């Protein structure tokens, strides 16, 4: 019998006895299950022929893939090892003796298995159910006693208050009519996909297909919805280039077929909580190719990127993430499976801390871009800096002809990445905990000039201000921040904008109690930095502006903080 853990990772689907009715107004993804086999077939064919056309020897691909997979399974030592390791070792032994026909069959088989593992499932019934039930359900984890009320009166959940929308979702709403939209949010927490998913529903935006790391499926609640709401599965443990090619091709085919998508360009969750800047744009790169192919076929379909920042007062997994960041380089884990996300008690504690905190998570929609980094208007037209309409097709013309060219497209994708990173900075919403953490961390840096980060992490309870000084610092730093907001460089949450320094300090201290260990201590009129690591983590959102948030006498410390930019 399979273990309960394995059962959770299986695709739990609801049996379908009769066809679910789909109306023409339903989002594109409602057609997904009907097209699933076609999509898989197209991905398999495109990946296979891609290698054949590039003249890559099939035995080389088979060898490389089997070698990567055997090594992975040997170290994994789990159910999958027992089931699959022999097969890969057999390929390694036999590939040199295989005929060309056998190689073709073996490679196509592997590509198809990978594609089937990746391809998602969309159940409109689960979607409709989740639209009304997910928010109360997550809300219920905040106040379990009100669970009955939540189920009987959907829509009354606390989540409605905790989560807030910001920016311009109207633009995204227009663009889903004008072409295919790729939502690209910042990534701090595993709750991000829930927060964005919920926000798309609230803003009357269609669901988006997204690639979810296999580790997300460790939470049974999330796992069920992921399996049935179009998520495709990304197993980050598989390092074989063939698998990556399957993932990219799957994304390209989905885009070409007009499925709106969502992915996190930051890759994994930001360990340091610095704003995502080193973006992994492999999947974004498929957008240029998808657009070019549609143009060559004579049926151009425009693609738009909508940057989103997800801004939290508290991050559920902050302790694990920052601990991982502070480990020596090389020891940090790429995949974390045992963090707060997989523990329901931490979910409860997290939501309890935020229950009284309106707008503790702000999802902000930024200005949309075309795949070449140009802004687009509500009709989906690409705009030059002077507002003139430009034809995006011009970017894929070479001497007047539309061409596919992966090297050129990599250049466009780098540029798009730069523009997304700029957008993330501009659309970051600074939260109360972040500003208070910044004031205290800057103080810590000020009293430990020139020390390295690790030395500072040991200075618990050593730096601080009197309460009166702390309030003064919060007020002055917030005023400088508001100046930057007026200049359009960054955003600020409505609570931080309107509350007094006393309320700001109180709110931050209240929220940070979630961490179960003192982060900021207030005793005998003294405010001290108790947990430098968590203060570092929360203040890191402000690193790009550190020098402009400081008074002249704090400039040396501020510059040390500012210089950390890019290290996260």
């Amino acid at each position, binding site marked *: 019998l399979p273990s309960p853990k394995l059962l959770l990772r299986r695709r739990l689907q609801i049996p379908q006895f009769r066809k679910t009715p789909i109306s023409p107004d339903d989002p594109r993804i409602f057609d997904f299950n009907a097209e699933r086999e076609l999509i898989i077939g197209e991905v398999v064919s495109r990946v296979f022929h891609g290698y054949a056309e*590039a003249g890559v020897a099939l035995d080389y691909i088979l060898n490389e893939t089997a070698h990567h997979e055997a090594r992975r399974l040997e170290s994994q030592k789990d159910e999958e090892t027992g089931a699959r390791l022999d097969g890969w070792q057999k390929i390694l032994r036999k590939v040199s003796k295989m005929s060309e026909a056998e190689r073709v069959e073996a490679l196509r088989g592997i590509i198809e298995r990978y594609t089937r593992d990746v391809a998602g499932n969309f159940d409109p019934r689960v979607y409709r159910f989740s639209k009304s039930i997910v928010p109360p359900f997550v809300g219920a984890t905040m106040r379990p006693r009100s669970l009955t009320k939540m189920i009987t009166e959907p829509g009354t959940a606390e989540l409605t208050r905790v989560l807030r929308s910001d920016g311009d979702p109207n633009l995204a709403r227009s663009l889903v009519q004008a072409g295919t939209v790729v939502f690209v949010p910042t990534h701090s927490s595993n709750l991000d996909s829930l927060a964005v998913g919920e926000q798309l529903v609230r803003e009357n935006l269609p669901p988006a297909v997204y690639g979810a790391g296999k580790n997300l499926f460790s939470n049974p609640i999330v796992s069920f919805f992921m399996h049935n709401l179009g998520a495709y599965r990304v197993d980050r443990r598989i390092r074989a280039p063939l698998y990556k090619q399957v993932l990219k091709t799957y994304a390209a085919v989905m885009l070409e077929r007009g499925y709106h998508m969502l992915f996190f360009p930051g890759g994994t969750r930001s360990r340091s909580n610095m704003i995502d800047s080193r973006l992994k744009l492999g999947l974004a790169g498929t957008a240029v190719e998808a657009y070019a192919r549609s143009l060559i076929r004579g049926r151009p379909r425009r693609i738009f990127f909508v940057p989103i920042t997800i801004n939290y007062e508290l991050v559920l997994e902050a302790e694990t993430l920052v601990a991982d960041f502070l480990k020596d380089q090389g020891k940090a884990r790429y995949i974390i499976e045992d963090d707060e996300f997989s523990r329901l008690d931490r979910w409860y504690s997290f939501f309890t801390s935020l229950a009284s905190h309106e707008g503790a998570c702000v999802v902000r929609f930024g200005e949309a871009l075309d795949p*070449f*980094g*140009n802004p687009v208007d509500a009709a989906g037209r*690409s705009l*030059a*800096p*002077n507002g*003139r309409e*430009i*034809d*995006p*097709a*011009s*970017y*894929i*013309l*070479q*001497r*007047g*002809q539309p*061409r*596919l*060219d*992966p*090297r*050129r497209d*990599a*250049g*466009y994708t*780098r*540029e798009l990445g730069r523009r997304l990173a700029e957008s993330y900075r501009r659309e970051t919403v600074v939260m109360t905990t972040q500003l208070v953490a910044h004031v205290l961390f800057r103080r810590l840096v000020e009293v430990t000039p020139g020390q390295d980060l690790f030395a500072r992490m040991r200075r618990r309870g050593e730096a601080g201000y009197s309460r009166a000084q702390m309030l003064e610092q919060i007020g002055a730093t917030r005023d400088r921040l508001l100046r930057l907001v007026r200049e359009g460089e960054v955003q600020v949450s409505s609570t931080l904008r309107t509350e007094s320094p006393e309320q700001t300090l109180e709110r931050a201290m209240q929220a940070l109690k979630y961490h179960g260990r003192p982060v900021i201590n207030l005793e005998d009129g003294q405010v001290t930095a108790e947990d430098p690591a968590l203060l570092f983590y929360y203040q890191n959102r402000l690193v790009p502006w550190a*020098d402009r948030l400081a008074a002249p006498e704090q400039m040396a410390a501020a*510059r*040390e903080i*500012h*210089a950390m930019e890019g290290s996260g």
Partner: protein
Amino acid sequence: MADGSTTQPRMKIGVVGAGFGRGLAAAAARTGNDVCVFTRRELAPVEGADGSPLTLSTTSNYDAVGGCDLVFLAVPSEYTQPVMRELGEYLDGRHLVVHVSRGLVGDELDTVCEVIKRETSVRRVGALAGPLASSVLVDGNPGGAIVGTDFPEVAEAVREAIGSERLRIYETDDRVGVEVGSALTGMLLFALGYAQGIGFGPSTVGVLASRGVSEVARIAELLGGRDETLSGLACLGDLVSAVAGDARPEMELGRSMAQGLSREDALAKVGTHVESTAVAKRICRYAERMNVELPITNAITRVLEGQLSSAEAVKQLMGRRVNRE
């Protein structure tokens, strides 16, 4: 891996600016390309491939430049923004734009390619740099240069436009490294000229040159480039070429100031636009904000500002603690 046909129509080349631009236009016209120079003055004919005089066609309308496939931008970096804002009206995604400016723009030290991308909808940009003297371009003497670009077709277009058996065009995807190297080599040349002017010998020049390249590499890294690019044509190659005798105004400026002339008088004596020394002060301010130490750039800035005498400059640089190279 571009697909489609292999025969391509002949490229139309636009050149904006007729100083160094005239050399680029000459090289492009000599290889048989259709060239148009944006300038408001008349251009003297250049020598064609067969030795006969070759007249370069000129225009004073930006829309004519918009009709070109490849545009060389040969204006000082401080004019990039106004020129591109105006020219941008006629450009879109199909254009390739390559600049030869030796500067960084504004307090954030934007590269010229960044300015082009900010002011226009052009994305396929590149920087042409290295020891590319006018004599190489106009007279066809053997030489080489490097194109820094994210787009391979930009380098190919430059090769097609001006490359020949006598002019080797290399390429790198470290565009920022090339632009920083090109902008700051002049600053190092000023320092070398200054060192020569106060009587230092080849050993000092060697130390200053190599430590200078290493400092410029740090700046390039700070701005997103790769340090190894600076050991190539864009910085070291350019530097060696200038020291070997390619008369560069920055060295003359350094020598003149070492001999006691004020900056204004030295500039008047050189008699030409010296772009790259103006950037030193902005680099120092930027590095201070980023908490990075740049001793050579700092000394150059203070000398240029008249805050440091030659003796003090030597003391400041030579008195530093010696570290590993």
